[in-house]
């Protein structure tokens, strides 16, 4: 089949899925070939990793998915995985007789989209097409981040997967998540891919070399897709291509680094799903589900979507054990604490907004945040120095005319207004880790105060220490915290009804907000607190707090900054949420 999956709309899909199987065991090769053929897939087999790699390089768009054994004599399966991930950007399934968690984890960390244990069953193979489709969907989002996906999202509800396990690995989560959920949404998602399809860029060795050269030239700290693109000087390459590759590259580096640093935190994947009410009246539905796994790192994503409005928010929190260090880091290197943001003009037709916020922790060694595993989910797609904030600068807020006229009067805020924009994007990040906060409460006056104040705003009855000490609790808190604030920004002044419901199944509790009206009121009233609050902070927000408007968002940013995290936002990069978790 010539074009196999390249026409994803073909009714035949997944029939004809082009699978490359790599295994040094001839028996398994034969069995897998037969199995895959029975699934009506188009199979190519080879028993050497190098051979596989050259096959892949030869026929650049010749395969849809790769299944590879982990142990091969000529090349480690993980190595192959890495190459395929970087060069071809194909989904790779690893397989092995070994089911040790560490092995599986290694596979996932190297970007495997699945890890199958031998003996492999037919039913497992039959389903592999989902990885291909998922990738397509993500790519679609990659490029048309603002595209409308009319309130349809794949359910990425990890809730049911959440248990007390130490690590939740996104990759795994995704692949293991309920089939039903996928199926339910498959059809619609399917359509989306067709409209958002893009040509896959094959990162040849040459191209990748160019890329690496550019990165080195710019310096890893300052690197950004645009700059790389300029330096690479490859006319047909787009910023998105580079951005996506840069992301992979960073992942790759962070893995390398992690391998050398056993203490490094694991990534915690957070999936969040939402699908929202589409109510012309501007009702906002909000659901968030959190899986909060671990003390070290927390990634959480929130999304809000409503009438023509989807807001994806990711908090990724990397927390270093050494809190003091972070503080030092922060105070001594203000730059690092700056929030970066790439304002992308949003076309008026856009009906979907996506946000990625990530707060990168600063490594104790002072390495750039990008090395932190927690960065998997997001990277600062910095356009240029202009968008860097000075430390005392205000969070960047993109406003949109639709909702209201945001008075650009708040001088400390960098408010970017685009007359054409019909959508507002609010970037906000909230960072906190139980430990961190708890610690901070005890040891760092400014933080604790801040924390407690926030607490007060949100959950009046709770005491600050209490609130961030337990996983579940803390995240509920965060939810609380987060939800209202994100929404406040949008429809201020209009009498809109908000339906906020927090679904945090995994956390075992949902805190429904009765109506935001109340909350809003609350915020407005409490607004006076903010300036006070902020005064205590290292970063000064002199004029912060034009009451009606940005009640809360900035504080989050502040958190981000104060914690010395790198904060980034790029509306086009929504898929990183996924990608961080489902590594390409």
């Amino acid at each position, binding site marked *: 089949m010539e074009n196999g999956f390249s026409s994803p709309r073909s009714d035949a899909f997944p029939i004809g899925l082009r699978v490359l199987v790599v295994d040094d065991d*001839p*028996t*398994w090769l*034969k*069995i897998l070939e*037969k199995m895959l*053929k*029975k699934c009506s897939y188009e199979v190519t087999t080879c028993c050497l990793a190098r051979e596989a790699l050259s096959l892949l390089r030869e026929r650049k768009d010749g395969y849809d998915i790769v299944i590879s054994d982990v*142990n091969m004599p000529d090349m480690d399966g993980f190595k192959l995985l890495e190459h395929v991930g970087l060069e071809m950007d194909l989904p790779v399934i690893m397989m092995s007789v070994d089911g040790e968690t560490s092995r599986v984890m290694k596979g996932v960390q190297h970007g495997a989209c699945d890890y199958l244990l031998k003996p492999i069953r*037919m039913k497992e193979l039959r389903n592999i097409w989902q990885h291909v489709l998922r990738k397509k969907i993500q790519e679609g989002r990659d490029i048309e981040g603002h595209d409308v996906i009319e309130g349809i999202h794949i359910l990425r509800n990890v809730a049911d997967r959440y248990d007390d396990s130490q690590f939740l690995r996104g990759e795994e989560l995704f692949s293991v998540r309920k089939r039903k959920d996928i199926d339910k949404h498959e059809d619609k998602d399917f359509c989306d891919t067709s409209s958002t399809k893009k040509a896959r860029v094959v990162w040849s060795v040459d191209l990748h070399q160019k890329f690496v050269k550019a990165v080195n030239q710019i310096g890893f700290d300052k690197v950004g897709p645009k700059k790389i693109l300029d330096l690479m000087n490859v006319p047909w390459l787009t910023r998105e291509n580079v951005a996506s590759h840069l992301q992979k590259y960073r992942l790759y580096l962070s893995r390398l680094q992690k391998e050398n640093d056993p203490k490094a935190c694991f990534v915690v994947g957070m999936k969040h799903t939402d699908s929202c009410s589409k109510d012309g009246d501007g009702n906002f539905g909000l659901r968030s589900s959190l899986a909060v796994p671990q003390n070290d790192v927390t990634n959480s994503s929130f999304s809000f979507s409503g009438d023509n409005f989807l807001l994806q928010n990711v908090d990724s929190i990397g927390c270093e054990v050494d809190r003091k260090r972070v503080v030092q880091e922060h105070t001594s290197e203000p730059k690092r604490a700056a929030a970066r943001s790439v304002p992308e003009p949003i076309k008026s037709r856009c009906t979907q907004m996506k946000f990625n916020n990530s707060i990168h922790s600063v490594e104790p060694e002072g390495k750039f945040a990008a090395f932190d595993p927690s960065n998997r989910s997001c990277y600062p797609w910095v356009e240029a120095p202009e968008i860097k904030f000075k430390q005392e600068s205000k969070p960047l807020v993109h406003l949109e005319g639709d909702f209201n006229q945001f008075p650009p009067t708040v001088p400390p805020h960098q408010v970017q207004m685009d007359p054409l924009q019909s959508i507002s994007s609010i970037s906000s990040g909230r960072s906190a880790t139980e430990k961190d906060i708890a610690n901070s409460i005890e040891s760092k006056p400014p933080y604790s105060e801040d924390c407690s104040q926030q607490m007060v705003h949100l959950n009046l009855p709770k005491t600050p220490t209490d609130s961030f000490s337990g996983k579940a609790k803390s995240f509920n808190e965060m939810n609380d915290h987060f939800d209202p604030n994100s929404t406040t920004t949008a429809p201020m002044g209009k009498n809109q009804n908000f339906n906020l419901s927090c679904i945090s199944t995994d956390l075992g509790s949902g805190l429904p907000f009765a109506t935001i009206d109340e909350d809003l009121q609350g915020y407005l009233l409490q607004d006076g607190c903010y300036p006070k609050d902020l005064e205590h902070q290292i970063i000064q927000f002199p004029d912060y707090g034009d009451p009606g408007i940005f009640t809360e968002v900035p504080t989050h940013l502040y958190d981000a900054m104060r914690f010395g995290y790198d904060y980034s936002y790029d509306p086009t990069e929504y898929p990183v949420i996924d990608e961080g978790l489902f590594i390409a």
Partner: protein
Amino acid sequence: MNTVRQSLFHQGFLDEQFVQLEELQDDANPNFVEEVVTLCYRDSHRLILNLEQALQKSPLDFNQLDSYMQQLKGSSSSIGAKKVKAQCTLFREYCKAGSGEGCFRTFQQLKKEHTALKRKFEAYFQMKRQAGPSQIASRPK
């Protein structure tokens, strides 16, 4: 013939992976099971030789042994050779523990199981060929 087959399961020689293989056999590959088993034995023979050589080394390279044994385990898992696979697992545990003595002992046992199963297979496939002339078809390449 069916009883012969059943006994392979009952005596613990084979597990359900073998059933999987049987299910894969169809008109396109009427001898699929036998082909796979033959292929597997050819490959495992090579691996056993590797292991034999590696076991003669002194000191033993447990990493090397483990890696060979992993291959053999993978191979025996492909046809559902349950007993052989169990020995592989045991062997790898001895590798991990650094017990050369355990490795030797297990390896002998493994070879015994490996050969025993081979005999069973031979008998079974021969019986099958005689039973169904339709299945005489083509032998593996």
